[in-house]
């Protein structure tokens, strides 16, 4: 049977609400809804699979892209994540959130691909000290069209992919995907305090890199103000 993605994806209404901005009641409803989705996947319902893919594919792709730095590898990890999830759907624990479960699978696949691409590269994030701010140009008041340009977004993405490996996921999960510190730590298999340290380092390193990029738009480089 030849798959017919578009027909299948929209042929039946499968309503799955977004998970942002919950209330307690909404959260309970969401968890119930997630279990309905898991149940549908276990019963091999193709419409539920289409909704499952639509809800999570972009999130998984963004994490993979941030960790790996290129679209082809990110696509490979996204595919591997969904395949792994479908293979283990029977053992999914109802107390977990589907998104966190998927992020964790994706994180592991991304790490495996990184090891394959760079087998001898150590994990330097645990050994480096806290970055000391050096670039002191205030670009935060640049016009929005400059700050939000496609080029600026690509510069940030490139800067994320140049971070030490462990820091990339921390920034993507917390500051892009907006996970809580606890969820971020769970996905990476580290403590919450380690997660916070990684996030802090990532932000400071990205700040240096983006200041180098945006600084030229600020105009004449200022003299460093004295503390």
């Amino acid at each position: 049977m030849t798959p017919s993605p578009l027909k299948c994806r929209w042929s039946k209404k499968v309503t799955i609400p977004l998970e942002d901005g919950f209330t307690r009641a909404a959260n309970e409803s969401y968890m119930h809804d997630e279990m309905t989705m898991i149940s549908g996947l276990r019963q091999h319902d193709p419409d539920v699979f289409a909704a499952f893919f639509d809800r999570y594919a972009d999130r998984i792709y963004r994490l993979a892209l941030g960790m790996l730095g290129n679209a082809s590898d990110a696509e490979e990890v996204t595919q591997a994540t969904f395949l792994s999830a479908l293979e283990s759907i029977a053992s999914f624990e109802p107390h977990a959130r589907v998104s966190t479960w998927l992020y964790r699978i994706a994180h592991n696949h991304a790490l495996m691909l990184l090891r394959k691409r760079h087998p001898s590269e150590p994990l330097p994030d645990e050994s480096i000290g806290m970055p000391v701010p050096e670039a002191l140009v205030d670009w935060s008041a640049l016009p929005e069209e400059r700050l939000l340009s496609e080029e600026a977004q690509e510069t940030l993405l490139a800067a994320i992919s140049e971070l030490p490996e462990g820091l990339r996921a921390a920034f993507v999960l917390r500051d892009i995907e907006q996970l809580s510190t606890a969820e971020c730590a769970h996905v990476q298999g580290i403590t919450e305090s380690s997660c916070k340290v990684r996030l802090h380092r990532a932000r400071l390193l990205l700040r240096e890199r983006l200041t180098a990029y945006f600084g030229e738009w600020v105009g004449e480089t200022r003299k460093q103000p004295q503390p």
Partner: protein
Amino acid sequence: MTCEELIDYLSDYLDHELDTDLVRAAKDHLATCERCQIVLHTTEGVISLGQRQQRRILPPARRERLFARLQSAFLSAAGDGHE
């Protein structure tokens, strides 16, 4: 609070996870330190730009290709399971 301490606490400050006393000390320091103000504002800028990345989606061609492959695998597994 010194500049070094302010930088150490910066993420906790921005994430509203700092104790009240430390928040007050940080604000006092920031009121007189242009250097730390710049680091604060530009770090906020990094976080804000990160949030904008959430708009990034799978490129349509990759999305369709990926969906077709995964749907095929899903349907194939369903067929195996029903045999």
